[in-house]
């Protein structure tokens, strides 16, 4: 991450959720607020052990409603803070996230998603794509969404999440699932220079300056219109931070679009069909908002067939359809929660859509 001094701290086998917690620590986050829920408990467990030793604080909040509002309070002081949860808990946080967006407060919210609706189950699912990328709560706002697909990305993207939250003064969500959360892989942990922009807006006591006010209520004539347009322009600017992984786009006859753990399975499947002589590409969005529409648009001018694969009944596919050039065929293969996709299964779907 970043350009600062980078020290390699060695290679270890680390669980995804723990890598994420390490990323938070290495990003300089010293405040965590959360409420237990499977499958993300390794995050609070790791942080409850390590934050106090680093002079930070871990608070087990009384609910996810309280968690997000504690993050909001800490963020108002210009202090890096984080919460993590899963499905039902993230639903409870939506009012607070909306207030954070409206008050332009940075903060990191992690959703190691489970499957819904309702209590659903803890099987991996991508059913929270809409909730994450459409704002999720009330009002006209967006959060920046990062979707890791490996343990290393759980770590790297967490550091990135804090940087982007500060850069845009906006909540950033990390959308993972039980697979990236629970799997173990080697992790290269770095010691990034924690660099934070100046935060003149932060509440630290009105000493030697005018008071600072952080709010989302705008009742004056035309004030809210102006505020919402300003937020919109910020969301537009976020496009400069679009991230994605692209494979074989040059000679592809079909391009798969998949994110998170599915993107990983798709990569393996693509290697399999490539070997059999079927040129297939992959676009794996890493930022789900802003969505990598540019690369999809450009590629779709050459490649007629796109195949979107998701662990849900069709959510990201809508964004792909909005991004492609006219005449592109956007196929969809969805799997509601319950079982994971195998590379063989994906390879078969690719071949059946190529004919």
């Amino acid at each position, binding site marked *: 991450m970043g350009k600062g001094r980078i020290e390699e701290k060695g290679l270890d086998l680390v669980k995804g959720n723990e890598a994420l917690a390490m990323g938070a620590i290495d990003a300089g986050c010293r*405040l965590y*607020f959360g409420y237990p829920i499977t499958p993300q408990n390794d995050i609070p467990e790791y942080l409850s052990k390590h934050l106090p030793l680093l002079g930070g*604080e871990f*608070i087990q*909040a*009384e*609910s996810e*409603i*309280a*968690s997000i*509002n*504690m*993050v*909001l*309070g*800490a*963020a*108002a*002081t210009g*202090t890096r*803070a984080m919460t993590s949860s899963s499905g039902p808990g993230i639903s409870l946080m939506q*009012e*607070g996230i909306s*207030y954070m967006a409206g*008050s332009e407060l940075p903060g990191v919210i992690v959703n190691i998603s489970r499957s819904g609706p309702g209590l659903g189950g803890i099987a991996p699912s991508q059913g929270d794509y809409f909730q994450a990328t459409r704002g999720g709560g009330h009002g006209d706002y967006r959060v920046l969404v990062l979707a890791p697909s490996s343990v290393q990305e759980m770590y790297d993207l967490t550091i990135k999440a804090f940087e982007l939250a500060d850069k845009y003064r906006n909540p950033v969500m990390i959308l993972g699932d039980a697979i990236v959360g629970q799997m173990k892989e080697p992790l290269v942990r770095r010691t990034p220079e924690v660099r934070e922009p100046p935060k003149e807006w932060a*509440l*630290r*006591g*009105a*000493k*030697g300056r005018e*008071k*600072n*006010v*952080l*709010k*989302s*209520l705008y009742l004056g004539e035309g004030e809210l219109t102006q505020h919402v347009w300003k937020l919109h322009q910020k969301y537009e600017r976020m496009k400069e931070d679009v991230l994605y992984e692209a494979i074989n786009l040059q000679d592809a006859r079909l391009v798969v679009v998949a994110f998170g753990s599915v993107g990983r399975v798709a990569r393996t499947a693509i290697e399999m069909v490539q070997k059999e002589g079927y040129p297939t590409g992959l676009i794996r969005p890493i930022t789900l908002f802003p969505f990598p529409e540019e690369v999809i648009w450009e590629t779709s001018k050459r490649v007629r067939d796109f195949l979107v694969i998701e662990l849900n009944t069709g959510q990201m596919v809508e964004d792909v359809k909005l991004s492609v050039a006219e005449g592109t065929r956007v196929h969809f293969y969805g799997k509601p929660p319950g079982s994971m996709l195998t590379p063989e299964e994906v390879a078969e779907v690719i071949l059946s859509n190529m004919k």
Partner: protein
Amino acid sequence: MKKVFKRPESLTEKPFHFCPGCHHGIAHRMVAEAIDHLGIKERIIGVASVGCSVFLYDYFDVDVIEAPHGRAAAVATGVKRARRDNVVFTYQGDGDLASIGIAEVVHAANRGENITIIFVNNSVYGMTGGQMAPTTLLGQKTTTSPYGRDFTQDGYPIRMAEMLATLEGVSFSARVAFNSPKNLLQAQKAIRKAFEMQLNRMGFSIVEILSACPTNWGLSPLEAKKRIEEEMIPYYPLGVFKEREIPDYL
């Protein structure tokens, strides 16, 4: 009490928008005065709530964050944990604190969060037009209890100051009113004390203020003051329910 009528330094010049006879204005002044008195204007952070007092950020000349409805105690927790050397207070109505935000306030109190809460109990939801609150008195008519609050249907008015006083994390819990010069003095004392508790790192402190809402009570300012005396104080007794002498971690 002359001081009460001089604009404290911690208030801006902006005139209050409150209805005539509303006690929010007195509460604002008294809190600002305590801030001046303790010399903490430059290190205090206020947490405004959603209700008639939401414009706290316009009236107080200190750093302020607006919390979602009911969540002020959780927001204040985040502020305080991030900035232990700042003084943090919330200002919340009875709908905000005793209904939608009751979990947040009880748990902040129970954690002994070193914050101060100014709790304005006017027995109704003022801002939304006088609906029934958990603090509405039995028999009291509101827009959503048109036949009067009936305990068989709506339960009983909740006594927050007493309830919170039972929690170990609480250093100070008191109830005050503005209906007489004597009670105004007691109120001033209690609010200062609550902030002093925080300054001495004693833990959670709260002052509940019985407050007039002439508009939604359908009374004149004078009649509203009388109602506090004759109806509210008998059910919500004034006094200090808990005052810690030494920090609980000693």
